[in-house]
């Protein structure tokens, strides 16, 4: 009834088509999100719920760190009469014992929370990403006046709707699991972030409002000002989603790199200081970019699945196009992702040398070899898909001779990238090599080689993309760019790759701190090659002719499996790296501040951890199939009824 009431109001507004009605719509969208974001920094809000919770468990008695508690004279909540608000008590991290961790028969606390958290993150990443590119595709449709974009955007949202439910369900389950298995930890975290958690919960209402009005209002708000309102609702949905992601990121980054605490680890009362920790923004950026790539790959897998099961040529053509668009989005996210990852890792090193070395040089370094293998698989399958795409273009034969050299360079760069710094060797091999350090392969183990390799991978992946983009075009005319533009592009690629390689070799001989700095000109070179070459394409083909009609749907079946490989690679990678990010805290709930004394406070063996991640990935893939099946179920019912 409420939805109908809301819709009737919206309909009324739209039918009036007045500027004030439009403004009201936008204002309504803004009102629900912006105050939450703006009030972050001045959270002088009373916390009756938090206070009641803290009193109920007698915080001062439970916290065993008496010295720290004594160091906080304002330990009792006091009333600030002038402002009429309450200033919350500083909280010391408790010293827990094994008995403080409830045991539920049949459940292992860590595995249960690990499982649920990872599944929640998978779905969360998906549903945060999809509305971003759905909104962009819808906007593209409005600008180009091409309705196909609008239909595709709508279909993407249809797929994501089940994902929203699953993300929310696992989110709720995670909250309960954390409270059940780690009550003291949750009490501590609530003591610090309680104020923000309330806004976090409220943001879900905002997101739900935007989600349902955006999705169910799609057909009703399809043109004119109504479309503008619809786009505003989509923007609101994305703002709410990003807000939710950033807030929950702050808890994870606080656990890794706590801030806003005094020397004794006691929370000083400034929530913003706790949120704005050393790793918050690197995690925000990395997750945001990764979500885009991940969301794109999942929808590409959906399109691939639909392509394989399509009955007609028309259906095949549609899902081929949808798959390509999703793939394109995934690649847009994938290309900057290594740089976002490097920044995060650098900040981890800066925060704690111990944590940084544990991550990259110690026990977890082996998982980074798996990471490199998975990223390489993603790059290889992405390139393979692009090469298969050439089958759509009648003019592509002119370029196929370039594919094998590109493949050789990509594989070589990839081998250099995943060569470990520390090699796994038998004692016989150690003797043959003359020690643990290989004189040749050791050179590929440092960042100088790895930065060079990843820049090569990115430039050549873009080259594959560019080959596909121009495969069906022929420049006409005799202006400078039409006749010489391609030669300039070739020169640009050669000079760019030579510069990246020489910077890599040069940086190998420099101190580590300077060497990392040289990755900046390498990345800049990569960006210059990509952007300039893209612009040059525009100039070269300003006047051009098609060499035949693009044959959407004319794709080999195996190309769709490349899309599946992409998705599974991303999912596995997220699970693995999610584990690493969390596990480098080792035996700490909050790094160096709040010790984990549960029976599970040990680092599991690498095969065990990898196995758990793999099982989670399998469960997730099964749920994704369910998610893909749901819209088809609706379509079947629809086709038997309305259509």
């Amino acid at each position: 009834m409420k939805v109908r009431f809301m819709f009737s109001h919206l309909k009324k507004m739209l039918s009036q088509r007045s500027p004030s009605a439009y403004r009201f719509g936008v204002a309504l969208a803004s009102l629900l999100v912006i105050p939450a974001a703006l009030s972050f920094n001045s959270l002088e809000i009373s916390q009756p719920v938090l206070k009641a919770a803290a009193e109920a468990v007698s915080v001062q008695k439970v916290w065993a760190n008496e010295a720290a508690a004594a160091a906080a004279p304002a330990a009792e909540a006091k009333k600030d009469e002038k402002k009429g608000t309450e200033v919350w008590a500083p909280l010391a991290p408790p010293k827990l014992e094994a008995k403080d961790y409830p045991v539920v028969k049949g459940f292992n606390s860590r595995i249960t929370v690990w499982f649920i958290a990872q599944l929640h993150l998978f779905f969360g990443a998906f549903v945060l990403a999809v509305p971003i590119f759905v909104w962009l595709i819808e906007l593209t449709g409005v600008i180009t006046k091409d309705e196909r974009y609008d239909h595709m955007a709508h279909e993407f949202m249809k797929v994501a709707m089940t994902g929203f439910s699953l993300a929310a369900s696992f989110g709720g389950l995670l909250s309960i699991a954390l409270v059940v298995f780690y009550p003291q930890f949750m009490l501590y975290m609530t003591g610090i972030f309680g104020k923000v958690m309330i806004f976090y919960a409220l943001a879900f209402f905002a997101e739900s409002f935007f989600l349902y009005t955006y999705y169910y209002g799609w057909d009703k708000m399809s043109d004119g000002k109504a479309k503008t309102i619809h786009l505003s609702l989509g923007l609101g949905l994305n703002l709410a989603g990003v807000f939710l992601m950033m807030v929950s990121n702050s808890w994870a980054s606080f656990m890794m790199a706590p801030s806003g605490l005094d020397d004794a680890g006691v929370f000083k009362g400034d929530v913003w200081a706790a949120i704005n920790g050393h790793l918050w923004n690197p995690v925000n950026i990395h997750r945001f970019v990764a979500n885009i790539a991940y969301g794109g790959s999942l929808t590409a897998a959906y399109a691939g699945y639909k392509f394989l099961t399509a009955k007609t040529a028309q259906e095949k053509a549609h899902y081929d196009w949808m798959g390509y668009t999703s793939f394109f989005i995934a690649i847009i996210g994938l290309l900057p992702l290594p740089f976002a990852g490097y920044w995060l890792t650098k900040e981890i090193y800066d925060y704690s040398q111990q944590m940084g070395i544990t991550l990259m040089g110690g026990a977890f370094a082996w998982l980074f070899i798996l990471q490199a293998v998975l990223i390489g698989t993603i790059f290889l399958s992405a390139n393979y898909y692009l090469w298969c795409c050439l089958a759509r273009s009648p003019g592509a034969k002119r370029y196929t001779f370039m594919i094998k050299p590109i493949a050789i360079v990509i594989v070589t760069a990839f081998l250099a990238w995943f060569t470990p710094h520390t090699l796994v060797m038998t004692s016989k091999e150690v003797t043959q090599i003359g020690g643990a350090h290989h004189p040749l392969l050791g050179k590929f183990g440092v960042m100088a080689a790895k930065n060079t390799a990843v820049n090569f991978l990115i430039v050549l992946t873009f080259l594959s993309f560019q080959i596909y983009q121009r495969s069906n075009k022929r420049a006409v005319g005799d202006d400078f760019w039409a006749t010489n533009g391609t030669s300039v592009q070739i020169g640009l690629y050669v000079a760019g790759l030579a510069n990246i390689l020489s910077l890599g070799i040069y940086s190998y001989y420099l101190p580590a701190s300077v060497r990392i700095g040289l990755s900046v000109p390498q990345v800049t070179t990569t960006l210059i090659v990509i952007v300039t070459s893209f612009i040059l394409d525009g100039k070269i083909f300003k006047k051009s002719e098609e060499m035949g009609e693009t044959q959407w749907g004319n794709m080999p079946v195996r190309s769709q499996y490349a899309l599946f490989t992409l998705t599974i690679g991303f999912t596995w990678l997220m699970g693995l790296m999610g584990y690493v990010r969390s596990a480098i805290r080792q035996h700490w709930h909050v790094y160096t501040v709040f010790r984990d004394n549960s029976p599970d406070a040990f680092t599991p063996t690498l095969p065990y951890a990898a196995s758990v991640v793999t099982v989670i990935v399998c469960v997730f893939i099964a749920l994704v199939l369910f998610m893909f099946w749901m819209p088809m179920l609706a379509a079947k019912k629809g086709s038997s009824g309305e259509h």
Partner: protein
Amino acid sequence: MHFLKPIIGVLVAYLLIKIGVPFLGSLSHPGTWPVVPTAVMKMYLFFIIAGAFVASTFSEEGYNGLIGPIVDLYGNPAKAKLRLGAVAAVSLLGTWVAYQYVKPSFDAPVELRSVHPAPPSSANMWGKSFELQTLKNPFREDKANFAKNVEEGGIVYYKNCFYCHGDKQDGKGHFYSAFNPIPANFVDVGTIAMLTESFVFWRVGTGGPGLPSEGAPWATAMPVWHTMLSEEEVWKAVMFIYEQSGVQPRVTATVAEKK
């Protein structure tokens, strides 16, 4: 014959890695034959084969050229004998691989050894605790006496470290060939150039026995120098090895410095 191209390509790549890499490595380490470890070789080969496959099958022509002969071999009644031979060859290859895995061996187990293990947050030496995260070399800032301190560090080095780590700091001292693994090569940018001075100070001070169990088993003969040298001597020796090897210690901006 289209299907032979990727196979030849893979074989060439294999030989380059199997023979070419050790040959080039032996030029810089005479007397050794630095093979590519089996674990790395497997990963290399997997992706070389995958690369050859994708580069050969992106087009229908290439795909049919590679897969066609296999389909023909298994489906053509006229090739029954050849098929039998191919199945037997594949089965024997599988048997040989399986046997290699399960046959008894006297080799020591594979070592999962971290070259640079994570340091503890603090280390006990000379009866006191050092916080490694914030620890700085006290002599580094003394610019006036820098040359003198380095020289004194050199004396410590030549009296104690030189025999293993060598005159050129390349890990080839008099006794180096007796050790497995050989002593660290400070000139290589993959060793001390990647580490902060506090890390090197801790490694020198606590030696092999002071290493964490994280990367066990530890096969290192590095002595526990804090029982034989003073704190001052270790710091100066650390300064000397950086100066002499021509590399700079890693510097990480601390959170406090950033803010």
